[in-house]
C-alpha cells in the first residue's frame, strides 16, 4: 500500500454504490464536459451516420432514417478517465447490432469518427451484442451539443472517451489503429474495472 496521506479522510462512496464504482473513480451527480476542441454544430439536414471500411457496400443513414430505426432506452453507469463516474444515466439510441445487422466483414476493429476530427478505436466485438449504441437522447431530452449531440457513441463498459461525441460513423478495419486520445498517451482499450487509463496500464 502507498504511504498514508496523514490527515486525509476522504469521502467514501455509499455502501450500496460501492460495487458499481471502478477503482480510482468517484461518483458525481453533475455531467462534466471534456473535449479537445470547439463543439461542432452540424445541421441535421447534412448529418449522416456511415459504416465504411472493410465492407462490400458502405452503409449510410440520414438523421431521419437513423432516428426512425428501432431504438433502446438504456440506463447505464458511465466512467470518465478523469475519475468521475455517473450512475444510472438514461439514454436513447440505436443499438450497433441494428446498424451492423447483415454486415458481413472480416474486420476485427473499428475506428469511430466524428465531426471535428475526433477518432477512437475499439475491437468490433466491443460494440456488438448489446454493448454499444448511437445515442441521441440523454435524460429523455435531445442530446446537447456539448455532450456530443446530435448523436454520440455510447459504449458504457469502457472509459467514456471511447463513447465518441458527435459521431458520424465507424470504419471497419482489419488492423487496430489508435484514435485521438490513444495516440496521446491514453490506454488503447480502456477498461475502467482494470483501471486502464494510460498507455501501459
Amino acid at each position, binding site marked *: *500500500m*502507498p*504511504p*498514508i*496521506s*496523514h*490527515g*486525509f*479522510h*476522504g*469521502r*467514501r462512496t455509499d455502501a450500496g454504490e460501492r460495487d458499481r464504482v471502478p477503482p*480510482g473513480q*468517484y461518483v*458525481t451527480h*453533475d*455531467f*462534466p*464536459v*471534456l*473535449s*479537445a*476542441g*470547439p*463543439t*461542432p454544430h452540424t445541421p441535421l439536414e447534412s448529418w449522416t451516420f456511415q459504416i465504411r471500411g472493410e465492407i462490400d457496400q458502405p452503409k449510410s443513414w440520414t438523421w431521419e432514417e437513423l432516428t426512425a430505426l428501432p431504438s433502446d432506452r438504456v440506463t447505464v453507469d458511465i466512467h470518465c478517465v*478523469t*475519475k468521475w463516474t455517473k450512475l444510472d444515466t438514461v439514454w436513447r439510441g440505436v443499438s450497433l447490432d441494428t446498424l451492423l445487422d447483415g454486415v458481413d466483414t472480416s474486420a476485427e476493429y473499428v475506428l469511430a469518427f466524428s465531426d*471535428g*476530427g475526433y477518432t477512437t478505436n475499439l475491437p468490433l466485438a466491443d460494440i456488438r451484442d448489446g454493448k454499444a449504441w448511437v445515442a441521441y437522447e440523454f435524460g429523455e431530452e435531445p442530446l446537447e451539443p*456539448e*455532450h456530443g449531440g446530435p448523436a454520440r457513441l455510447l459504449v458504457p463498459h469502457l472509459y467514456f472517451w471511447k463513447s465518441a461525441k458527435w459521431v458520424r460513423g465507424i470504419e471497419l478495419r482489419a488492423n487496430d489503429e489508435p484514435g*485521438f*486520445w490513444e*495516440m*496521446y*498517451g491514453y490506454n488503447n482499450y480502456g477498461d475502467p474495472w482494470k483501471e486502464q487509463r*494510460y498507455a501501459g496500464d
Partner: protein
Amino acid sequence: MARVADVVSETARAKSLLLDPPDWAGHLAGQHVDVRLTADDGYQAQRSYSIASAPEDEHLQLTIERIEDGEVSPYLTDDLHPGDELELRGPIGGYFVWRESLGGPVLLVAGGSGVVPLRAILRHHRAAKSDIPVRLVYSARTQADLLYREELESFDTVITLTREEWSGHTGRVGRDLLEEAAWPLADHPLVYVCGPTGFVEGVADALVAIGHAANRIRTERFGPA
C-alpha cells in the same frame, strides 16, 4: 512519491505546491498530473491537476484552488506542508501542450484557474527564448482572484474582470475582446482555451464565429456542465 519543497499562497483560495518528484522525466508545458491520496484505512482518491511550472523550472509546481466541498483540494491546500510526500503520476496528456515546433502565433485564453497550464506555456516560451508571438487573455472574477498577477503582467497579457469595476477591461471574454486581442486570422493563430466548461464553450464558439479554424483551437475544460 514527490517531496513537498514548499507551499505558497497565491490567493485567498489558491495555493501552489512546489514539488520534487524523484526521477522526473520532464514534461511539456500544458500537461497535467494525477494526484492520489490514501487514507489510513487504504481508501484512495485521485484527481488531475495542471502543471503550473515550465519544464525548465527547478520545482514541479501545481496550483490548487480550494473547492469548499471538495474531497481532495482542501487536503492539498490546508494539510500539506514542506517535507510531506505526495503520490503523483504523470505527466499526462499530449494534446493540450505547446512547444516551439508547434509554432504560432499563440493566443492563450484563460478563465479562472484555467490560467494554470497557460502560465506553464508562457514560462516555457520565455525560458526557451522563443520569438513566436504569444499573448494571454485572462478572465477572473476580481483582482483578488488573479493568480500570478505580477508575473503575468510581465508578459503580453490582457486581463478582464467579471465581478469588479477597475481601470482595465470588464465583462466576459466575448467576440469584441477576442477580435481586439487575437492575432490576425491570416497568420493562422494557434489558440489554447482553458477554464470552466461554460467559459470554454463560449470562447471556442466565439473564436469559430470570428473565423478561427476549429482545428487550431485546443481546449481543456473542467468543472460541471
